[in-house]
């Protein structure tokens, strides 16, 4: 399993967020993509939609599973990764890079999130 980057925050539901300059980039973790298997479709919100922390904002599907996306932060969507529409497999191959999902203008503080070490410990309990 690839190492979870140290500069990100992680949620229990296996999303990550990179916070910089009042904005957050959100994606799913390596653990999430591995558990789902080959990802076939990612359903994302639209630019301008409002996300609420710990609430559903989309979903990700593989052949035999589907999982809701739970937002780690609150804010307004300023960009979505449109390339995933035709190449959802990028979430498998590069979950922390090209496989990002949405960019959000944050409206609150990020809460109840873990650093990489705590997240890895959390994953260990689910394996």
């Amino acid at each position, binding site marked *: 399993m690839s190492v979870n980057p140290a500069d990100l925050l992680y949620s229990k539901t296996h999303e990550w967020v990179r916070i910089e300059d009042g904005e957050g980039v959100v994606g799913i973790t390596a653990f999430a993509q591995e558990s789902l298997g080959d990802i*076939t*479709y990612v*359903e994302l919100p639209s630019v301008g939609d409002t996300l609420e922390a710990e609430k559903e904002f989309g979903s990700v*599907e*593989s*052949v*035999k*599973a*589907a999982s*809701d996306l739970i937002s780690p932060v609150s804010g307004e969507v300023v960009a979505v990764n449109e390339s995933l529409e035709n190449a959802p497999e990028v979430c498998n191959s590069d979950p922390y890079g090209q496989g990002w999902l949405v960019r959000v203008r944050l409206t609150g503080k990020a809460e109840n999130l873990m650093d990489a070490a705590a997240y890895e410990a959390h994953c260990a309990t689910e394996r």
Partner: protein
Amino acid sequence: MPYIPHTPDEVQEMLAVIGVRSVEDLFADIPANMRSRQLDLPKGRSESAVCAHLEQLAAQNRVDGISFLGAGYYAHDIPKAVDALAGRSEFYTAYTPYQAECSQGTLQAIFEFQTAVSRLVELDCANASVYDGGTALFEAAMMAVRIAKRRTLVVDEAVNPFWRAMLATYTANLDIEIRTVGQRDGVSDKDALMAAVDEHCAAVIVQNPNFFGVVDDYSPIFERARGCKALGIISVYPVLQSVLKTPGEMGADVAVAEGQSLGQPLSFGGPYLGLMACRKEHVRQFPGRIVGRSTDVEGKTGYVLTLQAREQHIRRAKATSNICSNQALCALRALLHMALLGPEGLMRTAENNMALTRYAVKRLTALPGVSLCNSAPYGSEVALRLPLPAATLVQAAMAQGVLPGYPLGKTYAGMEHVLLLSCTEVNDHGQVDRLAETLGGLL
């Protein structure tokens, strides 16, 4: 006992392997106070006795008279090859094709069905069927509710009333508002429909030909819907669809149909099948099964159930629908019917039936007090205004062996004097003459 193979010796052998003394011991886990008393059901009967009983009941139904009854469900000629092929046990005793490698027959047939349906209505894709036209209409409405994220449906009153009743039942607990737009003498009120569609609507739902047989072009209404980011849903009659302007040409987003007229006997209301087709961008909101083409590990073409993550066995409470069993064998029959008739067979059937309906109109409107209910173009079904209540006339004509149609007063208040008459290829000019003579004697 019929259909149970074990001899008494085999049963004893099997019980010994299990390690119990009697079959009854295997039911010991049923809580004692919940054990059934002996069933008070009739004793089993021989195959011939059961057949005789049902033959006798079948004989009590009157199916031999002349009938012009349609109202969304039509008697059509069905090629005998449909029965022969769909009656192959390779098709009818198989289960849902979850194991693709041993189900390519069913899977490819569904793929071909999807292709045929999508070509008939000229939309990108179709699913593997839902239960009937009414449930197809409801499922299409729910697609729109999810896609538009709105909860108001604009529904033309000239859409099949049996399905509108179902829609009301299915949405009763869902916080969905249904705005019904009234029709005028059987003609859809397109101005009122245009006015009713706004940016709060999830969808506008119309039917072509509408329940009264009127043929129309709903393009402007779908254009208005698109402008409001609502979906355009249209229900069609597959036989006439072979000649009429298509949902694709009109700019509809979802087309639905009762598929009964494609190879299904009337069979007192079922089983039938609901056809659903949509534009590619909405396919992930489709209910039910969908077959896709793929390749196997050696690169050979094959077919699989696909996009299953939408379905109940994976998505559970968040599935696009609860449907599991669908109407696969009925879909096969519909496909066979279309393949055997071909484009020309379907179109000539439609044209024959339209021509015969025009002949019936000519004969009947020559009778005193009978007139067309409206002056709109019609297909193979038509609403006629009578000088007396249609229900009364239907009763009287039935006593003489002719069923003239459906009395519209049963579902539309104020239309008690209107008769809905349908002609198909099972009727002919002689039958129409007989109908005219019968009604002439009663009016």
